[in-house]
């Protein structure tokens, strides 16, 4: 099931930040420019959707 409301997305980001295992993953839909939560093992949202989970999990850092 897809979720794209801000609260769900933010909760997922908090889980990532805490290093928790998640059953969902965040993908970026280039057609709508939205971040969408999908089942981690489910089918892709669309052929063009890319994971936003991995770069987010990499973390943020300054030079």
């Amino acid at each position: 099931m897809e979720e794209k409301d801000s609260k769900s997305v933010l909760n997922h980001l908090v889980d990532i930040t805490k290093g928790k295992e998640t059953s969902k993953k965040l993908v970026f839909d280039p057609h709508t420019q939205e971040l969408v939560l999908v089942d981690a093992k489910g089918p892709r949202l669309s052929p063009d959707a890319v994971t936003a989970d991995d770069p987010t999990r990499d973390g943020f850092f300054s030079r």
Partner: protein
Amino acid sequence: MAWTSQQSARLRLEMEILERYFPSFYLKDSIIPGRACVEGIIRSNSGAEYVVRLHVPADLPNSVPDLEIVSPFLHDRFGHSLVELGTSYPMHLLKPEGGLVRICHYSASHWNPNITFAKVLLKIRAWVEGYEGHIETGFPIDHFLPHMQA
């Protein structure tokens, strides 16, 4: 100094990828190495729009591009300007330049030439969501977005 042929090809590739994922982004004003930048709009899930500028490094693709939010003028939940906040660990901010907020995204020690502008913008897309989370909840952005290991 001009772009080398590899850099020209790389810039073309970057723009092709952006066309697919962030189609509002375009190469702005100049193609001179050191002055070139890519600008476009990132839209959050709430529909708010942010104009984002990515400075193309003169040694493309071998160093981390600087990235700034051109508009809107960003404030924290408590009304303070993010520019005045300066360098901020909890908000993932670098020292502002030219009155614009700069976002820390990749560490120099984790940068490699396989990282494309689109991947950087994907991080900024997440930052924007984290920023709105901060405005909504008051938690700093690093509550939503982790720090990169040194």
